[in-house]
C-alpha cells in the first residue's frame, strides 16, 4: 500500500463485491417477485391490503411499533406426524397392543418411548397424535401399518421451532413472499412484545385492539407496552353514545360523561393489525392446516 490509488482500488473492489452480492443480486433475484399460489388451492398469496390497512401500515411505521415487535416467524425444520382419526373395528386396548407389537420394527426402534408416551393414559379419545418425526419415511411406514389393519389416520406436516411450537405465534416460517406488498417492510429486530405476524388470526377483534392500544393494562394486567392514547379522542358523550366507544373498565375510563373513540389513525392501525395473517401453506413453507384433522 504505497500509494493512494492502491488503497482506493482495494477498497473499491472489496465494497463493490459486497455491493454486488448483497444489494444487486438480491434485487435481481427478488425485485421482480410476483404473487405465489397457496398450496392445494387456486388462491393467490399475498393478498393486497384494503385501503385502511395500507394506511395503517404507515401508522405502524410512524409510531415505531417495530422497535418492540417483529413480524417474522422462524422455523428450524418440519416434522411429519401421524394422527389416528378412527379405530375402525378395533378397541383402544387391542389397538394399543398392536402398536406395541410394532416396536420390534427396526425403523421404529428410536421412537418406542415417544410412541408409548403418546398412548399413556389414553382411553380411545380421537384424534390422537401417535408419532412425530422429522423423518417422513418412518411416519409413512407407521401410516401404512395402521391402514393395513383398517385404522384411519392422517399424516400432517408440522413446522418446528420455538416461535411455532413453544410460543404459538405462527403456523409456518415467514417467507419472502409474505412481504410483497409491505411498503416499508417492518420486520423488526427486537421482541420486547410478541411477534405480530399472525395477530390478525390471534386477536381478530378490532375492539380488543383499540382497547389494548388505548390502555394495554386494561386487557393484559402485566403489560409493559406503552399506551397509545394519542390515537384516540376523549370527548363528551353525545345524545346517542358513539357505537365505537371503547368499553373500558372503571380504572381506565376517562370519567363520567366522557367517551373514548378511536381517531382515524387508530382505525387504520387496527385494520392493519387484523390484516396480519400468515396462515396459508405455500410451496416454500408447507404445513397441514389444523382444520383438516378435526
Amino acid at each position: 500500500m504505497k500509494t493512494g490509488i492502491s488503497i482506493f482500488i482495494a477498497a473499491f473492489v472489496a465494497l463493490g463485491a459486497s455491493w454486488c452480492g448483497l444489494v444487486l443480486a438480491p434485487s435481481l433475484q427478488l425485485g421482480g417477485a410476483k404473487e405465489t399460489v397457496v398450496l392445494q388451492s387456486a388462491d393467490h398469496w399475498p393478498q393486497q391490503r384494503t385501503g385502511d390497512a395500507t394506511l395503517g401500515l404507515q401508522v405502524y411505521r410512524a409510531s415505531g411499533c417495530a422497535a418492540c415487535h417483529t413480524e417474522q416467524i422462524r422455523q428450524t425444520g418440519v416434522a411429519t406426524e401421524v394422527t389416528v382419526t378412527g379405530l375402525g373395528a378395533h378397541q383402544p386396548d387391542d389397538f394399543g397392543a398392536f402398536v406395541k407389537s410394532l416396536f420390534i420394527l427396526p425403523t421404529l426402534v428410536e421412537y418406542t418411548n415417544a410412541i408409548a408416551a403418546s398412548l399413556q393414559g389414553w382411553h380411545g379419545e380421537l384424534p390422537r397424535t401417535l408419532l412425530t418425526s422429522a423423518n417422513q419415511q418412518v411416519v409413512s411406514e407407521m401410516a401404512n401399518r395402521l391402514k393395513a389393519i383398517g385404522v384411519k389416520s392422517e399424516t400432517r406436516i408440522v413446522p418446528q421451532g420455538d416461535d411455532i411450537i413453544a410460543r404459538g405465534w405462527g403456523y409456518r416460517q415467514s417467507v419472502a413472499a409474505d412481504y410483497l406488498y409491505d411498503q416499508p417492510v417492518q420486520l423488526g429486530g427486537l421482541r420486547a412484545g410478541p411477534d405480530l405476524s399472525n395477530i390478525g388470526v390471534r386477536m381478530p377483534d378490532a375492539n380488543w385492539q383499540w382497547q389494548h392500544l388505548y390502555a394495554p393494562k386494561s386487557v393484559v394486567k402485566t403489560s409493559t407496552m406503552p399506551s397509545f392514547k394519542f390515537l384516540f379522542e376523549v370527548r363528551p358523550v353525545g345524545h346517542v353514545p358513539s357505537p365505537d366507544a371503547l368499553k373500558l373498565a372503571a380504572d381506565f375510563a376517562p370519567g363520567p360523561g366522557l367517551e373514548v373513540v378511536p381517531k382515524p389513525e387508530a382505525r387504520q392501525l387496527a385494520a392493519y393489525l387484523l390484516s396480519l395473517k400468515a396462515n396459508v401453506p405455500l410451496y416454500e413453507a408447507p404445513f397441514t392446516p389444523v382444520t383438516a384433522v378435526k
Partner: protein
Amino acid sequence: MNQTANKSDCSGELEASLRVPLLALFGGAVIWLVVGLVLGLIAAIKFHAPEFLSACPLLTYGRVAPAANDAVLYGFCLPAGLGVMLWIFARLSQRPLALPVVPVVAAHLWHLGVLVGLGGILAGESTGHLWLEFPRAAAVLIFAAFLLVALSAAATFGWRRERNLYPSHWFLFAALLWFPWIYSTANLLLVSHTLPRGVVQPVIGWWFANNLIFVWLALMGIGTAFYFLPKIAGRSLASSGYALFGFLTLIFFGTWCGIPQSAPVPAWLPAASALGALLSVIPLLALALVAKKTVSGANVACLGGPFCFIKFGVLSFVLSGVLYVSQFCPRYSLILDFTWFGFGVTQWQLLGFAGMILMGAIYEILPKVMGQPLPFPKLARWNFFFFAGGVLLFVIPLLIGGVEQGMQWHDARVPFADASAVALKFLRVSTTGQLLVLLGSLCLLLNVFVMTIQWKLGLVKSVLAYLTSPLAASEVKP
C-alpha cells in the same frame, strides 16, 4: 511518518487551520451525544414505567428509541470521526488543512441534517428502515456535508508534504470512500418514492447497517487508534504487515456480515453472512495483535487520560466485534436473535468502541488546536471512569439478559410475559449504566464548551484591544 516533525515551523499554522472546523464538528457532535444519551435514557425508563411520557406522541417509545440511536451514530460518531480524520490527515501530510472553510460549512450542514432527521423521527416521519430512519431532507444534508468534508480531507491528502503513507491512511482513506457509497445506495433505494419489493428492503438495510456500524466504525476507530497509540506510547506501530493484513481482511470479509440467520430471504444470503462473519474473526484478531504489541510494555501513566480511552476503545472493538460476528453463527442466532443481546452489542460498538476512541482523540486534539490546556482536566479523567464503568454496566446485563431471554423463549413452559419480566431485571441494571455514561458525556460537554467560550472571549478581547489600543509608533506616519 516523521515523528519529530510536528515541532517544525508549520505546526502552529497547521493547528490554527483546524481550529474552527474542528470546533464546529466537535461542538455539535458533543451536543448530539448528550441528546442521544438523554433520549436513550427516556426510552429505557419507559420499560420500567410504561406510562412515563406516553401521552406525548413525540416521545413515544417507538420514536425515542431510534432517535436515540441515530443521535449517537449520526450526531456524534460520524461528525466527531470526520473531525478527528481531518486532523490526522493534516498531521500526516505535515501541512495545514486544505480548503479550511469547506468543513466549517459542512459541519453546519451536518448538524442541521441531524436536527432535521431527529425532528422528523419524533414527528413520525421516520422512514421505518432500521438505521435509516432519517427522512429524505436530512439524508441529503448529511450526504452533502460528508462529501464536503471528504473533499477537504482528500485535498489535504493530495497536497501532502510527507509522501509516505502510514497505516492510518489506509483505514481513514477507505472510510472516506465507504460512507458516500453505502449511504447513497441505501437512501436512493429505501428513501425514495418507489421502494424495492418486499424483503429486498431489509436486505439492503442490513447491508448498510453492517457496513456503517461494523466496517465504517472499525475503519475510522482503528485508523485513529493506530495513529494515537504509537504516538502516545512514543514508539512506532508494531507491525505494518499485520496491520495491512487486518485492513484487507476487514474490508473483504467484514462487508459480508449483516444478514440475520433467521431472515425470511433466500437461504444463500444468510449463508454468505455466516461465512463472512466467521472470516471476520481474522481481522479482529490481527488488528488486536497489532494494537497489543504496540502498547505492551509502554511506560505511559494513563490514569483516565486519552491513552486509557483509546486502549479501552480497542479492547471494546475486539470484544464487541467477536460478539457481533457470533450472532451470525446459525446455532447461536437461534437463541440470540430478537433478544436484548443484539442491542447490547450495538451499544458497545457505538459507545464502548467508537465513542471511547473519539473522546480520547478529542481530549488529545483539542488542547493542541486551541493552543491552551483543557479547562477541567480532572473532569476529563472522571469522564473516562464514568464512561468506561457506565458502558460495561449498560452493556453486560443486556448481553446476559439477552441470552437468558433467548433460552426462556425456547422453553414452552415459560409464558412470554415471564421471560420478558426476567429481562426487565437486567434492564434495571443497564439503565443505571446509561446514567453513568450520560454523566461521563456531560464532562466532555463541559470541557468542550468552556474551551469554546474561552476562545471566543479571547477573540473578542483581542479585537477590543486592537480597536482601543493607541496606534503603534511604527504605524504612525512621520
